[in-house]
């Protein structure tokens, strides 16, 4: 499972970085979203991977670290708000600047 998770995080990050470096705002927003997915999975894995254990000490012989779950929850909420904001801003830039290029003009 460790290998699968690392590959997924790596693929998401690589895709996110590639898309964030593109010239159109839509691709950039998608790239930032992929990056935030990657970082959420990464945070989750930082509490070590355990299966089928409750996040409570004492109820069974081992437990899942509950803190990364709380961190991921916060990161998801913040990431969601930021994505909503950047999508609105990209739409506004498209209408104000007349182009969906990140510099507001096509390189022609």
């Amino acid at each position: 499972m460790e290998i699968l998770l690392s590959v997924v995080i790596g693929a998401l990050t690589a895709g996110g970085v590639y898309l964030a470096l593109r010239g159109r705002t839509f691709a950039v927003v998608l790239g930032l979203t992929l990056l935030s997915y990657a970082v959420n999975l990464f945070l989750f894995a930082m509490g070590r991977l355990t299966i089928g254990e409750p996040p409570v000490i004492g109820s069974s012989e081992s437990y899942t670290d509950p803190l990364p779950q709380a961190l991921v929850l916060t990161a998801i909420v913040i990431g969601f708000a930021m994505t909503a904001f950047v999508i609105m801003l990209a739409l506004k830039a498209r209408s104000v600047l007349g182009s969906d290029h990140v510099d507001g003009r096509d390189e022609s």
Partner: protein
Amino acid sequence: MNHLVIAPLLLPLLAGIVLLLLRPLPLSQRRLLSLAAVLALVVMAIMLLLEVADGSVWVYALGNWPAPYGIVLVLDRLAALMLLTTSLLALFALLYACRGTDLAGRHFHVLFQLQLFGLNGAFLTGDLFNLFVFFEVLLLASYGLLLHGSGKRRTRAGLHFVVINLAGSTLFLFAVGTLYGVLGSLNMADLAVRLEGLAPADRGVAEAAGLLLFVVFALKAALIPLHLWLPAAYASTSAPVAALFAIMTKVGAYAILRLDTLIFGAGAGASAHLLDPWLLPLALATLAIGMLGAIASTALRQQLAYLVVASVGSLLVAFGLGTEAAIAAGLYYLPHSTFAAGAFFLLADSIVIRRGDMDDRFQANAAMTERRLLGGYFFVLAVITVGLPPLSGFLGKFLTLRAALGHPAEAWVFAVVLGGGLLGLIALARSGSVMFYRAYRPAHALKTPGSRLVVELAPLSALVLLSLAMTVWAEPIHRYALDTAEQLLGGADYIRAVLPNRGGLQ
């Protein structure tokens, strides 16, 4: 536990919410409410500063959960200094905004209060993940403030600012996650303690995370090569927002100082002084590039934005030298450069509204109204910013140079700081002479701004007076800065206050 510690967070948050709910009220009353909240914040910051000036460290455990399990707010001398600087700058920026900037959009005062909430939270928190949350709060508010009033330039600069900061936030989370994975804690004092006893095998990962954090904070502070977002963003936004943003780069510098002295400070075992090989060279390069940018600028606000980059460079040169005297010099320089940059952006706005279509481009123009008075302000601010004697900029620079004596990089520091000062002087002398001396007699009467001159220049004058006061009372302020630097480098006070029974926790 003293509840005054959390007041600088609750006050702007509540003021922001109340202002949001009271939207039906006339603007004048909302302005009064907003101003009253910031004024109360100034009073509070002064009270807190006087309380911790004796060297005590106040810890406020939220929900009464002791550190490192709960989130703590920590008030030490450095945090109190940052709070006071922020609230003073905010008061005068808001006063200027009440002349009409707040009419350009709907939620200016709400966003302004939430921005202060985020800033104060970032200075007070003792928890790394909480620092991330407060960074997001202050960034989200700053996006709104930056875009306030709209317009083509502002939207384009805003888009760049938002995207680069979102990428920075992602890096921040990667760094926080890695540190938690290796050290098992997010409390900054606890991180410092655990780093000391870390196994050598894990040390590389922890150091990588520390350097990742440095990249994130360098992005906020606009350290080279991550400064490219700053000039367009600061030059295109409205004057009071640009003035308030003078503190935004200092948040990054503050976070770098905490990272350098607390988490990776002298007590971090083999990882101590992790940032030392990077900080000083990058800071010197930032100072040089900032001053070169100021020379190459074609418009006043762009030039001021590059001077902000240069001032971050000067500040981090002092922090990068790392000795007690050098950090104290940086801490003296920090409020001074914040007030000076804020005042300069307000002055630029007064100049712009008198130049009509010429905006702030460096071209000969029809003579402005009140050009003698504005020219006088420009002269004083140029002296303060460039660091000529006898004003506060000179003292900050002198203290930095004196602290650099005997440092291995002494020659570099002297060459870049003094050379940069000369470049800044040339840049400002050129722009001042173009705008004030090469003016021709106007063919028709220029339109003068609506409000009264005294009202217009009051916030600017107050910021200039603060800088002058820093010159007059340089001795007590410098003594406070020295005490702060001693407390930071000692590190033990902070850790002992947060973790009174350290060692007992596993």
